[in-house]
């Protein structure tokens, strides 16, 4: 059975790009355009891994992480995407339970390697 991944990213092109790549790698992908949608997808699909951008409309990536770690009390790996200048947010993300981060711009190939490592 393929592993499920929830991707929360407000840039639709990047989401599409990652979806294409991750599905090719055999993962089942659920895409959310903002944190609110991501929380709904996490609640309904019980993913094996979460990829989330930090800055998103309505609900931020940090809130998504705290929802998973505190409210749902889940231990699933979370990778956050951050842009330049969001170093403090990345630290906060790690403090509340993120497992890894990738600074934008990033290489999708490197992301795949990190996902595989976390899903072993």
């Amino acid at each position: 059975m393929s592993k499920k991944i929830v991707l929360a990213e407000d840039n639709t092109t990047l989401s599409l790009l990652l979806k294409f790549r991750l599905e090719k790698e055999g993962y089942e992908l659920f895409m959310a355009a903002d944190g609110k949608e991501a929380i709904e997808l996490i609640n309904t699909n019980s993913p094996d891994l979460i990829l989330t951008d930090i800055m998103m409309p309505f609900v931020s990536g940090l809130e998504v992480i705290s929802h998973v770690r505190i409210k749902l009390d889940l231990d699933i790996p979370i990778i956050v995407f951050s842009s330049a200048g969001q170093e403090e947010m990345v630290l906060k993300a790690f403090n509340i339970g993120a497992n890894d981060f990738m600074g934008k711009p990033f290489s999708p190939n490197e992301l795949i390697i990190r996902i595989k490592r976390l899903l072993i």
Partner: protein
Amino acid sequence: MPDIQNIMDQYHDLPFLIQLAWALSGVLSIAIVLLTIYLKIIRSYLRKKAQHHLAYKNKYEIFLVEYLYSGNDDGSLSDTQQTIIKKLKTSVKNKAKRKVIISILYKLMNEVSGEMSDYIKTLYHETGLINFAIDRLYNKNWYIAAKGIGELTRFNIEDVNEKVSEYALHPRREVRNEAHLYLVNLFRFEGLEFLNNLKTPLSEWAQVQLLETLQKFDDQQICDIKPWLRSSNNSVVLFALKLAKIYNQFEVQDTLMELLNHENKTVRIASIEVLTNLYGLEAKEMLKANFKDLSLEEQISFFEMLEKLVIPSDEPFIEKHLFHKNFEIQLLALKILKSINLDKFMAIDKKSNHKKANPEILKFVKST
């Protein structure tokens, strides 16, 4: 008809002010109706435009993703990629479609790196989008030229370096800033050569942007900043001072010492700050000797320097300024004394009946 005639007769019989009020109401009612219709048309036009935009976006996003994942292993363009380029080449001739394609590529350049960003750059070249950006450089409107430079920066187009360099001294600040960012983004420290000829002020924001751009590169090998420290443009000198501080330019200490006598006070103060950072002990002695001739701001900066570079032999000088009329100097002097001679500092109470002594400062320094 008789009814209308009747109404008109009644209208003519009305007093002038009432007639005017009716006429105004009529004109306003017609204006409201016309504006409502106009608004409806505009809204429907914008909705259609947004729908088209979305449709184009969805269409070209798929093209782009397919293009990015269909490359040959050796890095050359595959047949699929060639076909997509051909399709996009036709689309970019349409302004609306071109805008959508550019915005997708632009966003994606901020998000992905490595071979994908190389493919995006190839696409930008091959579809002819680069030519539209270059054409913008020759546009008579400065804001279009500025946008063109911004786009060329984003896609790292080095070929137009000479043309963009001409804009580094453009009379419009916005165009200059874009040109400066282009040069620094693409040529790093070498791109700063425009500072040699810059006569206009380099704003604080522009300086921050340039420094931020420089710091994102792995190669932090800085060039010779002495000519900029000696520039006749004060903003260039201040920028060079920031470079000296960030990149620990110990080799320019002599030039920094010269700047302590610069005609501009801001430059002199910034020089003290940089020399503090570079452990300029020689500068400290010089400033100490000329302390009385310094402006108050310089004196404060000097005490901040002393706070970091103080040695026991500075004690008499500090003692002399323990009750300086300026709050900040008094605070710094007390702090420095506390750090170098605690016993003497604790004994200050006895002397604190000095007329300029601030007991609150003393209390604060004691508690910290």
